[in-house]
């Protein structure tokens, strides 16, 4: 019985894949050829004929290796993006939202008496002050999963970007769809998008 893994590795040459993925691909193709070889032998083919039939399954093994590498690397890139950007980003965004909700949920009594009432200044301030911690946690998670500098940076500022996007969406929805003048005063609210703290001195407390 031929060593199919060795035959495939020799024919494909160097694959641009990580060791584990490469071994998996070679093992899977070797299993296929082995089954085909055995089926040919069972139908009465000689050993050399069966090997020839099996190896003729690919006319250009190196081209097949390149094609498989491209597909597998695309899969790896998608997985990496999920692990290095989306997962840390969504985790820190969730943690940040939960942290914002906590004072409201436990009715942290610093001037506010009901859940629907605006939370007091201290709650927002504390949330804003601790925000870099969430960003740092996102960047750390991204780095732990092998994230590049850009991926770490993006994961770090992900909660801020998501919240800014939400704020813009709500403001524009209010302005263009509902024609709500209070949410539509874009020039008035613009500074608060970039400097959220600037509105505190004007708030009710």
């Amino acid at each position, binding site marked *: 019985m031929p060593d199919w893994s060795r035959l495939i590795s020799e024919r494909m040459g160097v694959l641009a894949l990580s060791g584990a993925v490469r071994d998996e691909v070679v093992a899977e193709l070797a*299993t296929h050829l082995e089954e085909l070889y055995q089926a040919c032998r069972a139908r009465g083919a000689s050993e050399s004929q069966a090997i020839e039939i099996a190896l003729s399954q690919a006319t250009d093994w190196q081209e097949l290796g390149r094609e498989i590498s491209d597909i597998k690397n695309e899969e790896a890139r*998608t997985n990496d993006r999920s692990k290095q950007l989306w997962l840390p980003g969504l985790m820190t965004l969730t943690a940040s939202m939960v942290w914002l909700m906590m004072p409201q949920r436990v009715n942290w009594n610093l001037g506010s008496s009901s859940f629907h009432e605006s939370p007091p200044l201290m709650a927002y301030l504390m949330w804003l002050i601790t925000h870099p911690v969430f960003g740092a946690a996102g960047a750390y998670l991204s780095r732990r999963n092998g994230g590049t500098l850009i991926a770490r940076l993006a994961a770090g500022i992900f909660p801020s970007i998501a919240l800014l996007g939400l704020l813009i969406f709500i403001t524009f929805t209010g302005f263009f769809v509902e024609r709500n003048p209070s949410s539509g005063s874009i020039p008035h609210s613009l500074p608060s998008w970039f400097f959220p703290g600037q509105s505190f001195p004007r708030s009710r407390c």
Partner: protein
Amino acid sequence: MIRTDLKRGTAELAILSVLENEPLHGYEIARQIEEQSKGALQFTLAALYPMLYRMENRGWLNGTWETAANGRRRRCYRLMPRGRKMLQPMREEWADLFRAMRRVAKVSHA
């Protein structure tokens, strides 16, 4: 509207169809397609595996290593919900194609 990438579409529909009832490994997928099409459709290893990996990337299939009763390890492919959802529209598309070809080329059923 019928897509132009007919060749790839044929292969994808054939693979999804044979996996509809049970998970199969690569060699068995190729064998069943050949058997069910009475030899008209034949997949070489070089055609089959890039396609399986692409379909796996799209989330249509999921491949996992399993050990058979004889101790041999094989990578078995399962149809995922996303792949199952693709089956019906693809079948309808192919039925449209065959109807159109019958009208144009005056081809009758075998």
